[in-house]
């Protein structure tokens, strides 16, 4: 009982800031910092209305941009990582162990070391201020963590299933498509969810590549609202922050099981 009281107290302390933000988003601007506590004496939708148009275009523009980038990243990761993972987990070829070692090392490689030459490269291709620098790397299996996750998963699938199909004359492509891919659905779901959350929250890459406001994703738009912040802007910022967190929280509620299982088996953040 005591334990539950302690856990609930800690939880309340941790979650309180989020609740405070949610409540504050519905308060008139002048009350947010002057009236502590959770029950507002006045409520308003003004913050949402003002915040939605704060950057001189509806916030839905940024939502749509984020959605395009996120969906593209998910498709790219699912396609490229599952192909690579199947080869690394199941097919015999000389440098297999070396290649698997490279994926492990590249998980730890800081992207900041690569970003300058990548930027120069993509700039020469004329890709700055497009979504290509955000999407093409995903299509080329550069999120090595997911390869690792999928390799681990495929190793758990009994090899007899592949062998049975092979004896029936199926080549590697048919085995991949008809046997492995359907069986690795849980790993694909985990990849989808994590790619969604990471890409949705990603700030660094879009900050560097997206230069015109119409191309901004949600985090970059939010951050540019901060720069023009004034005291009465806090309500707007909170309202839009809340809106931007909503998809992640909704995803969390529905996909919690997969998230936690994925975390536990592979240790992703």
């Amino acid at each position, binding site marked *: 009982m005591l334990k539950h009281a302690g*856990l609930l107290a800690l*939880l309340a302390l*941790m*979650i309180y*800031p989020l609740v*405070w933000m949610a409540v504050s988003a519905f308060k008139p601007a002048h009350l947010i*910092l002057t009236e*502590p506590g959770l029950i507002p004496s006045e409520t308003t939708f003004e913050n949402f209305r003002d915040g939605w148009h704060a950057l001189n275009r509806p916030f839905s523009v940024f939502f749509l941009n984020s959605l395009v980038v996120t969906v593209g990243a998910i498709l790219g990761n699912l396609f*490229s990582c599952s*192909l*690579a993972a199947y*080869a690394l987990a199941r*097919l*015999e*070829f000389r440098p297999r162990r070396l290649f698997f070692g*490279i994926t492990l090392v*590249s998980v*730890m*490689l800081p*992207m*900041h*070391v690569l*970003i*300058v*030459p*990548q*930027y*120069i*490269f993509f700039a020469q291709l004329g890709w700055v201020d497009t979504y290509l620098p955000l999407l093409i*790397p995903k*299509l*080329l*299996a550069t999120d090595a963590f997911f390869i690792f996750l999928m390799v681990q998963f495929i190793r758990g699938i009994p090899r007899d299933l592949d062998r049975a199909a*092979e004896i*029936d*004359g199926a*080549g*590697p492509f048919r085995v991949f498509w*008809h046997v492995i891919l359907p069986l690795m659905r849980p790993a694909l779901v985990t990849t989808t969810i994590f790619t969604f959350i990471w890409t949705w929250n990603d*700030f*660094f890459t879009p*900050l560097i590549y997206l230069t015109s406001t119409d191309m901004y994703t949600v985090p970059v738009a*939010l*951050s540019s609202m*901060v*720069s023009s912040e004034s005291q009465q802007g806090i309500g707007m*910022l*909170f309202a*839009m*922050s809340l809106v*931007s*967190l909503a998809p*992640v*929280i909704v995803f969390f509620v529905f996909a919690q099981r997969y*998230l936690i299982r994925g*975390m*536990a088996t592979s*240790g*992703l*953040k």
Partner: protein
Amino acid sequence: MASLLKRRAPCPGSVERRRGRAAYVFLIPWLLGLGLVTAVPLGASLYLAFTDYNILGTPSFTGLDNFERMIGDERFWAASSVTARYVFISVPLQLMFALLLAVMLDRGLRGLPFYRGAFYLPSLLGASVAIVILWREIFGHNGLVNDVLAFVGIEGQSWLQNPSTALSTLIVLNVWTFGSPMVIFLAGLRQIPEEYYEAAKVDGASRIQQFWHITVPMLTPIIFFNLILQTIGSFQTFTQAHVISGGTGGPVDSTLFYTLYVYQQGFRAFDMGYASALAWVLLLVIGAVTALHFILSKFWVFYGDD
């Protein structure tokens, strides 16, 4: 599958060769990515580290100039110090919380899925711009923290404007995201055989003795794993630093994280040679710290059978 049955089985040798060649077809995207997005940029940034390059002209080779410049660059030292303090304070704190909570939640506690989910949620949100915006207001002059302090009669201060406390607000934010290592610890705790605890109980070991003599040694591989993962991640903290200071790293460079400095040099000043040199130093430091962790792990990580 039914349609596959009709085909004749080819001889095994050709299957092996076909599978070997097929592997490269499956790996085409990965190989392209490894070359174009990882290996070539890695080599290019190593070259740029020894040049003066502002993206418009051509890189001119300057030898060790960039590295000599670092030695005399106060902001480089500020950034290194900020990042080192952040990593070496926030990671152990975060892992301590994660372990403590995991142990409290283990062993058939009622409502486990609820607690686990709720404690995990912040780690999904922690690196988002929205949460850092929230943090600015919580620790702002009229923010939530000062309200609470005022309630108990302590006069608050401007946590973000004060160079000696600004970094602490981000350390608190990192500790707040202890949920992801906690979930990994919980999975590790499940692997510890129940008999160990039963045997310890029979011998009269207290809960605390059980924790230190069974739980901690059995979990050392997981502690090590989390330590490596969180250390590497924390070295690369960017969003938090950028949003909390509006991209400046202020006040007085007290939140100038290393990656933010790389960004300022590379993408604000367009001094891409110097930015590359800075980035390579970061890579080498992360590599060295990771290697050191692996060497030290021999003394404290316990792998069961060894």
